[in-house]
């Protein structure tokens, strides 16, 4: 007799990745020849001392447990439960977490299913192995300028800028842009989660030859001889230009602190006020360097763009969690309800019900004339937010209020909480 576990409604090992938000799981028995009575099993972390850790939820409770007991019929019908990563106990390698299923009566191990508590982490805290896997995936996706990173570069240009900046859609658009790249990298190496550059703290390990590079005296980055980013090419030209305007080893960028940023929305936490972060710290982070990252039309030539925006997104995620801003129908969460063309609506792409370019593949005015890259990369974990998502689909990214909207990522310092009982 053995047990089988299915994560995220997908039997494939490609679906065995969890964050802090609970995901649907099914457990069932197999090879039950001769057995007649239901079997009580206990699910637990295989090794509580190391690796990622998960907790278990029945359908009846929102309190996570370190272990859970279930009664499984010998007919093989699955039992439903939910699993989530334990906050701040993420994995550092694929499969370093594992769910062990034991017979509660005999203590026989019926199955061990490795998984990963895959979390977006502060880039400055990555292990060498995590860093190198990320860099390898990134360089592979760039493929010396011939890879599909070129599409990402060609999206974030002057032509596409109105879709992504200067209005309410700024945060959801970039959340989707990040998600798209992350999923592409996960198709290369599923252990990857997008790291973030916490720009209001010094990050000396990030700005080294082994990671995101060190500028030479005129600002062209140098990498160690074993760093695949040394072969980075965009627009047919190798290299990244990033002169530095602060001491990356001892200082942080000249930006608002995280606390100040979270207060931008005011004590009543209004999204439109919070969106001032597009100026500071977002704009100031971009311009804390010279070179490609400091101008919109060239910013994505530098892969640091994505680590910068992962932090911008993390700040939004943290604001959402702290002020409980997940209700898409609330103007506090997102003020531009409806769609473009409605009375009082914003520019197209910046309203809740608008689809987002380029993933909607619309190339007729007022959208840009070209839509590089196609639809959003799919995920084995979830069908959300859809291949051509609407703005609103990016808001409840953890599925706090609407579990099916869970997008499959979490940040190391932004927990999941069930909504307060009304």
């Amino acid at each position, binding site marked *: 007799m053995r047990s089988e576990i299915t994560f995220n409604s997908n039997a494939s090992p490609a679906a065995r990745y969890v964050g802090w938000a609970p995901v649907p799981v099914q457990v069932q028995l197999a090879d039950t020849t001769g057995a007649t009575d239901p079997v009580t099993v206990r699910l637990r972390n295989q090794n509580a001392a190391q690796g990622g850790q998960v907790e278990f939820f029945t359908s009846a409770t929102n309190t996570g447990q370190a272990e859970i007991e279930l009664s499984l019929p010998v007919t093989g019908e699955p039992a439903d439960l939910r699993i989530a990563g334990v906050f701040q106990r993420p994995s550092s390698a694929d499969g370093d977490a594992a769910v062990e299923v034991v017979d509660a009566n005999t203590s026989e191990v019926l199955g061990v299913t490795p998984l990963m508590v895959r979390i977006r982490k502060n880039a400055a805290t990555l292990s060498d192995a995590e860093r190198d896997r990320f860099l390898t995936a990134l360089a592979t996706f760039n493929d010396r300028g011939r890879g599909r990173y070129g599409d990402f570069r060609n999206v974030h240009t002057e032509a596409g800028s109105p879709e992504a900046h200067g*209005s309410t859609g700024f945060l959801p658009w970039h959340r989707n842009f990040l998600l798209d790249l992350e999923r592409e990298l996960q198709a290369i190496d599923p252990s990857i989660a997008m790291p973030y550059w916490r720009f209001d703290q010094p990050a000396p390990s990030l700005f080294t030859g082994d990671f995101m590079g060190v500028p030479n005296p005129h600002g062209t980055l140098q990498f160690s001889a074993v760093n695949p980013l040394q072969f980075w*090419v965009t627009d047919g030209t190798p290299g990244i230009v990033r002169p530095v305007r602060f001491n990356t080893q001892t200082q942080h960028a000249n930006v608002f602190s995280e606390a100040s940023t*979270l207060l931008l929305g005011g004590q009543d936490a209004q999204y439109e006020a919070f969106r001032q972060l597009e100026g500071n710290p977002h704009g100031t982070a971009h311009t804390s360097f010279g070179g490609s990252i*400091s101008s919109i039309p060239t910013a994505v030539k530098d892969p640091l763009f994505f680590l910068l925006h992962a932090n911008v997104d993390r700040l939004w995620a943290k604001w959402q969690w702290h002020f409980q801003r997940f209700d898409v129908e609330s103007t506090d969460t997102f003020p531009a309800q409806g769609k473009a063309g409605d009375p009082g609506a914003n520019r197209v792409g910046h309203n809740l019900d608008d689809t987002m370019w380029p993933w909607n593949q619309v190339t007729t005015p007022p959208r840009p004339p070209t839509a590089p890259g196609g639809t959003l990369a799919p995920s084995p974990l979830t069908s959300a937010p859809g291949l051509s998502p609407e703005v609103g689909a990016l808001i409840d990214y953890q599925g706090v209020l609407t579990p099916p909207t869970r997008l499959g990522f979490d940040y190391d310092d932004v927990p999941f909480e069930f909504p307060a009982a009304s």
Partner: protein
Amino acid sequence: MDIPEYRRQLSAELEQAAGQPGFRELLARSRRGAEPHAAAASPGPATEDDLTAAIAVLRDGEPDEPLRSAALQVISSAVDEQPDLIDALTGVLLDAARPADLRTAVLDTLQQISFRMVAFPGKRPDYLAALRSVIDDPDAGLRQRAIGILAREKDEYVQRRLIDGLEGRSAALVPAEKAIQYLGYDIHAEYFPLLRRIVENPPSPAARTEAVRLLAADPSSADLLLTLLSNKQENGDVRRVSAIGLQSAAPARFEEQARRIVLDDDEDDQLRAMSITALTHFANPEALSRDDELTGRIEQLRADSASQQVRQATMSYLAKHGT
């Protein structure tokens, strides 16, 4: 981690941040001649008085860094509602009588605002025109900043001025390696013949290296890159940049060279480590699996090389392609 406790910690941090002085307090301190305070936190909504005072601080005052920063933040936060505030900022930028560090901070703010200038694109022409005036500024730092921004916009005027400087038709605005780097933002700037001349007759070693880097985008320069890479007497930086360029321009030819470099006992270790790394990540795995000579050599280097980077490179290679 207890999440309710985590939430309480964050709330406490926010409360502390909310108590930090904003622009008004910093201005009042400045007027009292008090000591400068730490950088201001996010301001509340700016009033017209705040904006008037902030502009006056930048135009006429001698603000310390925190006050200057706070004043710029007040203005920046109001630009969405009052785009004409950008005119006040460009006015300060263009006023050569104001201190260079103040004008640089103003340019920082304008550049930050440019990330959302789609909200008020009518201001873009004035912004770019102001930058064109700044490329002749007495302050070298401001000049380079303005040139960089314009170069990334593929600005015709700045390209013209940079090329004139490189060709010797006028005084150079910036060192040659910076001019080359700025022109590199626009492949249509079409200065590959100039770059080849610079490789032959460089004004500086840095300019030569930068020129080699950018020649990777010129298909007809692949032979030159190969020659530079193959020449063991050539400058190490140039060889490495040539390798990267050849890897982009002519990958098959690069891989031949990379293989040769790995097998050659008499080669530069950094170049060798780079070559192994390139093969690890980008070469055809089937071809590598059939190359017993290369694999054997890499195994030997893992055991014997005196270079830590070479050994590290070999371990990555063998982890991916080893038997």
